[in-house]
């Protein structure tokens, strides 16, 4: 007869947090999916490489002093015809090292992506919590704005906000402010997702007895939202946030590709792709292909992670 025995350890002993993560069902599920593990590894690799760009990049691509025009258009892994320098992924028209440019470009893309997701999430969660908990006209106003915004494509909203904001900023500040304007416009175009999800979870949570119990203790409503309801609605937010990160990075690249994103002095992956695109048909394929591949791998990995997280956290699919 098979029998499982009780572990003799002290039932009051609290596991350290890392032990708890390693023992969790989530981690177990994660470790059994090679595609998801690969995605996580790729994501972490790109994030850490771009964070460490100043230390690991072989060149400083945006310091004009360090550039040699003679190095221009060097193909990958081939010595330059004039200088004999070898670059892993080649160089562009200015003689910039593509590999270094990608590291710095991914840095900008990720910064904009994370910041935009953070901004959208905070805005969306706050509005969603209030709409769900308070109901009535507040709910109606917030959700109607959301509905209207949802009926336009995100890129249109982002372009619109980007245009308006830029026209409000004095010309001499525009270059510095570009990144923040980009974050603002991507964030504003994406908050609806969070608001809708959080609102529906809040509607379910607010009628649970633990919220009623808190009301009996005279806990004020902002505190109930923050301390009681928020931790219980974060699961789906995490999922949207991860998938949203991939979307935000793509949206940023799209805007930069269209030439409305970050200025060419601090290019993101999208800018690199746009610049390289001009040389695609004259044979210098590497200038656009490698940034493009990086974007593809990054967006795909983050997206796969998000998909897995959604399935793993969904109790009905388990």
């Amino acid at each position, binding site marked *: 007869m098979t029998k499982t025995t009780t572990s003799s350890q002290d039932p*009051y002993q609290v596991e350290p947090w890392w032990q708890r993560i390693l023992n969790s069902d989530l981690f177990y599920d994660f470790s059994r999916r090679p595609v998801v593990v690969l995605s996580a590894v790729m994501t972490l690799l790109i994030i850490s490489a771009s964070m460490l760009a100043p230390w690991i990049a072989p060149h400083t691509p945006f310091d004009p002093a360090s550039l040699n025009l003679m190095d221009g258009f060097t193909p990958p892994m081939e010595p330059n015809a004039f200088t004999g320098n070898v670059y892993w992924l080649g160089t562009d028209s200015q003689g910039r090292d593509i590999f270094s440019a990608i590291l710095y470009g991914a840095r900008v893309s990720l910064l904009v992506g994370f910041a935009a997701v953070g901004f959208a999430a905070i805005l969306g969660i706050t509005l969603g919590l209030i709409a769900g908990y308070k109901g009535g006209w507040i709910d109606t106003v917030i959700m109607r704005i959301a509905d209207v915004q949802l009926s336009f494509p995100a890129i249109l909203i982002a372009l619109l906000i980007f245009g308006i904001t830029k026209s409000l900023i004095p010309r001499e500040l525009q270059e510095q402010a570009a990144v923040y304007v980009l974050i603002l416009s991507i964030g504003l175009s994406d908050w609806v997702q969070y608001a809708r999800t959080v609102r529906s979870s809040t509607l379910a949570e607010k009628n649970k*007895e*633990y919220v*009623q*119990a808190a009301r*009996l*203790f*005279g*806990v004020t409503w902002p505190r109930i939202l923050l301390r009681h309801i928020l931790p219980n609605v974060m699961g789906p937010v995490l999922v949207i946030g991860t998938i949203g990160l991939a979307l935000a990075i793509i949206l940023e690249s799209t805007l930069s590709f269209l030439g409305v994103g970050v200025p060419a002095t601090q290019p993101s992956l999208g800018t690199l792709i746009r610049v390289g695109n001009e040389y695609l048909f004259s044979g210098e394929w590497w200038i656009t292909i490698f940034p493009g591949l990086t974007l593809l791998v990054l967006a795909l990995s983050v997206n796969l992670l998000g998909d897995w997280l959604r399935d793993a956290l969904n109790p009905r699919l388990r």
Partner: protein
Amino acid sequence: MNQAKRPLLEVKDLTCHFDVSKPLLNRILEREPKSFLTAVDEVSFEVNKGETFALVGESGSGKSTIAKLIVDLVHPSSGKIEFDGQSLATSRGQAFKNLRRRMQMIFQDPFASLNPRWPVGELVAEPIYAFGLAKSRAEVNRTVEELLEKVGLSGRDAAKFPHEFSGGQRQRIAIARALSAQPDFLVCDEPTSALDVSVQAQILNLMKDLQDEFGLTYLFISHDMSVVKHMADRIGVLYLGALVENAAAEELFKNPKHPYTRMLLDAIPDHEMTGRKRQAIKGEIPSPIDPPSGCTFHPRCALATGECKVKRPEVVVREGTRVACWEVDRLA
């Protein structure tokens, strides 16, 4: 029984409607008026200090709504609720806070009533912080530990999370949390209906012990007649939101006056196999959105006359029992 001059809780003509209308556009298109559900219909009763007053009824009888009305989680449409001469609805500031603290509630589902993200110690400490009942962190911790031990858990359970406990243990945590507000009145909304019988016995015993120790007053809400008989001093029987009978517990079981009470008692399964014959029961509870006219029980009542169909019965007193039935004297 207690000889307090004034009842601790006094409920008078309490009524609560819920708007169950369709959305505005549908109403206009389908030419329907607004519709209301009368969840609680002119209910009056009193609860004396130190006693247990039980409300029994089947689903849709409004018993849970009354619980929420009393602790002001739901606002009444009309009527008044006075606790120790004061009302939650009209008091403000410190008086309100104090009143709120004195009336606490134990919920039906111990899986939903504890926030799953909070450790037990913080759950139990929340009322202490909210009402400012302790001066220091150390005092809070000591109180929490004492309370957990009082309800049969260990002080060391404070670090654990709710999911590590069984249903019965969670209900103990919920009781400890309610007690940490130092209340004198507890509304218990079906506190054991989600639990197994052997665990139910533990919780009921605990609640009786705590009542003896702290002199608590309970408003006990249940659908289970045998649990109510075990716990209550007085019992109110609800049918479709109205209180049809209000009697001392022993009297109610020995000498039920309202036909619905009799029916309810007949329907209890005879788990002790005393040979008591179980009566077949006619019909089911009608919809509270469109209740029958007059006495709402008349379609199921064997004694119903023409008068019962049109006129709402008045409350009469017979042998200390308050009963709302036109034909009460024919029964006896």
